[in-house]
């Protein structure tokens, strides 16, 4: 059972109050993009065994989207942050590095 804190309304609740929305920080591609870029945006996923950045929605609360950093093996939550960003905030990265010193970092280039 995950316990998440919504950065939009500040409520801390268990996962049944939220809904997972898949990988965060996907780079969007639209008309004019190459087939490979469009495929990558729509379907290709990091699916890491370890640190994962993902979208969540506070469905039974304020209804807003936010991002979370979580470990897919231990289910440890490193922190949540606003969805109004295309980069991972430094304090979240510091938190992850603190807990996972051998973490390779997130490739945001796709």
């Amino acid at each position: 059972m995950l316990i998440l804190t919504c950065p939009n309304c500040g409520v801390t609740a268990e996962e049944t109050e939220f809904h997972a929305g898949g990988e965060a920080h996907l780079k969007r591609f639209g008309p004019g993009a190459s087939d490979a870029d469009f495929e990558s945006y729509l379907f290709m996923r990091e699916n890491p065994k370890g640190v994962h950045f993902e979208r969540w929605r506070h469905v039974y609360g304020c209804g807003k989207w936010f991002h979370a950093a979580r470990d897919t093996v231990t289910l440890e939550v490193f922190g949540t942050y606003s969805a109004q960003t295309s980069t991972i905030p430094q304090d979240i990265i510091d938190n992850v590095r603190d807990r996972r010193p051998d973490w390779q970092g997130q490739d945001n280039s796709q």
Partner: protein
Amino acid sequence: MKKYSAFAVAREAIRHHTGWQRAWRDAQPKKRYDVIIIGAGGHGLATAYYLGKNFGITNVAILEKGWLGGGNTGRNTTIIRSNYLQDPSAAIYEKARSLYETMSQDLNYNVMFSPRGVIMLAQTHHEVRGYQRTAHANALQGVQTEFIGPDKVKQLVPIINVDGPRYPVLGGLWQQRGGTARHDAVAWGYARACSDMGMDVIQKCEVTGIRQENGKVTGVSTNRGDIDCDKLGMVVAGHSGHLADMAGFRLPIESVALQALVSEPIKPCMDVVVMANTVHGYMSQSDKGEMVIGGGTDGYNNYTQRGAFHHIEETVRALVETFPMVSRLKMLRQWGGIVDVTGDRSPILSKTPVDGAFVNCGWGTGGFKAIPGSGWAMAELMAKGRSPLTDGFGLNRFQEGRFIDESVAAGVAH
């Protein structure tokens, strides 16, 4: 390999069971193989078996990081059916179902295939129309299914409550030749047959890297040394993305936990498999008398093989209206497996960007039923470079937009 038979049982009974042999050799890795299969679950072992049986390729190693059949092969709810809507799915699942019928004889190993019949309940009008369409599609595909009304459902499943207030049973898609099999025995039977053909089934051998030269696979690195190969088959379900990462490409796959649970053993009360997709639950009774129950997947990426507790509650809550007797059952065990779910909820059997490396994954929540068909098709793909059964399941379908949209026809709504 000594043949298993009634005569062998009688002979061993007389000499106090001292003559049984190991079912498969505890092989040590050699330096080089023609083909290496990563993953000794059902799909990996079946691939190796049909490489040997259909194509005479027996210089094969099957590498397993844990123990044989200890992943999703030993964690599923053992349901076998082929009542799919789309032609490519129906073809490969029906191939699998038909191979299950003779598997015990082919492998000389009792996999306890029980064609007891599978009902998929229609509990909304939308589902009624959907399953009528599937029944028509199945008629064209040569898959024997039938849409039945609530009276027939009640006759087949006396413990069901067909006029529940929230989810009444309006009918069902009935596949009489579907059923269940003993999941462990499927892996064990294939492993025994592979070992008998001279293949090496190597347990506790974890692949740590995939070696390549000029874009062609040359072998793998493992915790038991480097092993060379000409062709590589990656058949590791939930860990496919992890392995693709080692090989340097990505897959359109996300790994999530799917849970199942069994009740205390009770007297025989239900001799068919019932799936209820609207309420996310499916149930059958094992030969030991346990009610085997499965539900939906967790919503988020997960490698823990556990899953969240509230999903069990949702699954059981959903079943209680349709099967009121479930409310009096004690649940004995609960477990989870990591399923690999693709963008269109259909599997991937394909070549990869690395020459000589093939991938078989993405079976998601419905892999067990496909094991022999998947192995048959994957072996043909690896031996000949193409198979009519895998043509629709290539990785290129995601780029070309040729999806096999089976979300609505799968065992549970995703």
